[in-house]
């Protein structure tokens, strides 16, 4: 992970086989039958995207009225790394025993953590990977941590019901998983929990985490969560974040 922010004015451009050659590969379908006109239309799409040296590498009749293209071209586009807004969840981590000991000592009690995959989303594997004993990729799940009282509510959990559980169990943190994202169903659904908790006057007392394969920290913040976790997250990432954040809110520090 990029530790230090890059120097101002550090421009990067796509790299094909030379610095700054700007090479990009595209593929797409056009709803036209294959032929010379279709090929030219594909090249024109690429040119309209600002590409030069456009090569229509492949034109294939994907169906009678649809044509699949592979196109290469070069772009002038450059990105100044120093100007990018990168919200990154800190990843310096303590080991399992160390973290548990430290948390129990500094917090003085077990943290109550609820997990659920909410709304109509039935994809439990991701939240299970984070919560369940077994964990993920050889990394124990939160249930195994002595410093957490972790409860996995499973999938298809209604937001209202989840908000009630938060109150009843006095949860310190809630882990929400969202996997189905078609037509942005995850956005609406994720916001709904924030609304419910706000309505119950609980939002500020609880750490809200959002996770899933198409979630990132930035999106989570945008939807009113405290942090977001994407594909390949390990339970220990989450455990470290949680303990750190609780301590932070107590005015303490995880890495002293």
């Amino acid at each position: 992970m990029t530790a230090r922010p890059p120097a101002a004015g550090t421009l990067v451009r796509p790299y094909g086989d030379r610095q700054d050659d700007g090479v990009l590969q595209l593929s797409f379908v056009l709803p036209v039958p294959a032929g010379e006109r279709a090929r030219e239309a594909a090249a024109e799409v690429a040119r309209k995207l600002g590409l030069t040296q456009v090569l229509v590498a492949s034109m294939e009749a994907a169906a009678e009225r649809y044509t699949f293209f592979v196109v290469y071209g070069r772009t002038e586009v450059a990105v100044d790394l120093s100007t990018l807004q990168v919200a990154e969840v800190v990843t310096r981590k303590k080991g399992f025993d160390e973290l548990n000991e430290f948390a129990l000592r500094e917090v003085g009690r077990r943290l109550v953590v609820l997990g659920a995959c909410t709304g109509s989303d039935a994809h439990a594997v991701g939240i299970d990977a984070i919560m369940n004993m077994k964990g993920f990729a050889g990394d124990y799940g939160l249930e195994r941590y002595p410093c957490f009282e972790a409860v996995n509510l499973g999938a298809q959990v209604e937001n209202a019901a989840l908000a009630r559980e938060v109150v009843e169990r006095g949860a310190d943190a809630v882990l929400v998983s969202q996997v189905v994202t078609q037509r942005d169903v995850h956005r609406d659904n994720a916001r709904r929990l924030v609304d419910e908790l706000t309505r119950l006057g609980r939002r500020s007392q609880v750490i809200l985490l959002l996770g899933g394969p198409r979630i990132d920290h930035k999106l989570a913040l945008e939807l009113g969560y405290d942090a977001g976790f994407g594909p390949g997250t390990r339970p220990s990432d989450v455990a470290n974040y949680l303990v750190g954040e609780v301590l932070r809110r107590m005015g303490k520090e995880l890495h002293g």
Partner: protein
Amino acid sequence: MLLADGRHVPDLHLDASEVVRCRALADQVTAPVLGFVEGHTTVAIERTVLRLFGLHGAGPRGVPQVNLAVDELHRRGLLGRGAAWWLGYVMRQGARDPVAIVEAIASLPEHPAPLPAADDRALREALAREARAAVAELKGRVAGRNALKAELGTGPRPHKYLIVATGNIWDDVEQARAAAQAGADVIAVIRSTAQSLLDYVPHGATTEGFGGTYATQENFRIMREALDDESRRLKRYLHLTNYSSGLCMPEIAFAAAWERLDMLLNDAMYGILFRDINMKRTLCDQHFSRRICALADILVNTGEDNYITTADADEAAHTVIASQFVNESFAHRAGLPDRLLGLGHSFEIDPARPDTIARELAQALLVRHLFPDAPLKYMPPTKHKQGDIFFSHGYDLMADVVGWVSGQGIQLLGMMTEAMHNPSLADRYQALKGADYVYRAWRSMGSELQLKPGGMVESRAAATLHRARQLLEEVAADGLFAAIGKARFGDVARRETGGKGLDGVVARAPDYFNPLLDEMEAA
């Protein structure tokens, strides 16, 4: 091993006595369940019966007439006699058209006056006659489909199965035609997210689904019509499939039968495990729906592939096999012949591990050898798919290789964008082009390759079979309900009294009347 379609696959040497034992155990597992099923009915079954008698419409706010009627009966505790009986009852009172019938049922008193025995007999006879006529019509439609299939012929095995899932039936049609033009043999229209949890079947043509398109009778009709047309143009019969699992399993099966679908996702346990539907409910519904499939010559696809999207494919390989024996037994009990048994399995072992081809091949050949006359539905990798579409595409092609060499009957083609979104037109095109290349390139390898006796593949297959038998012993001893309670399948535990839809299960009264069931059981 020589398959019925003329292909050869490498021989696996299995312990025949273990196979026999597995089948016996599966029958032991399903017998008590069948006992339960035969003593009960469900709101979904009763709705299906009413549909047979023409209650197709929807009332205000789109609620189907069959739901209005069955809910009224259920509220009054009348369902145990069978909705058909009450249909006859209100019809004798003069209700004729669907609207009037629903109204009449809704106006029934808590304790309707009983019918004299002769009238009861006449009622039953009249409805039985009508049911026979409706079933004959249904069979006529199915015969029409089969004639078209015979006329045009189908693509070679394995049939390439492609998914459309735009949410909009008209977009689905467009994509289904495109897929067919690119070589698809089977079009599967995926349902909208969580439709399986709806306790009714939506009505009419729909254009707004999430992650799939609502399964409605009208959508079925529209798609089948488009595929009939496309089949004729391409001179190759195109199969259509959809999903029946869920709270409306029998109703969807009936709609599918009527609209001449060729296959259905129809698993005895999927709803329980993956949709948290009550087990009693699903087990009753699956039986009835499968009888419909048997009647309408619909090939059922089971969902064992799902187990290994939740559980680890390596460790849970034997649960797939055990479940297939159970599904087979249930299917036989519902009158389905082997040729309609598209048992599901898949290529899902984590590609980060070594020797995955040996293990996938062991599994695919094991299933092939255990169920020699079943067409088998082979699924591509999904769980370990990556956003890296190039890797993902190559990974799919390895599944195509294993599927081909092991002689699968129906092969779902993997989508390189599986980890991102519902398939797009480009994804399907690439999947078809890739699979065609693989089948062509590996054409004779099924007969050419042999496995080292006692080698990795054979021993893995033997070990998996052995563990499946052990699991079946346990399930047979504990009973299926208890076994599911212990998360024996797909790593998911469900309680006998938990899940959705239990309140829709009703004990059949001694005078239970279901002329559709009678027809099907007589067949």
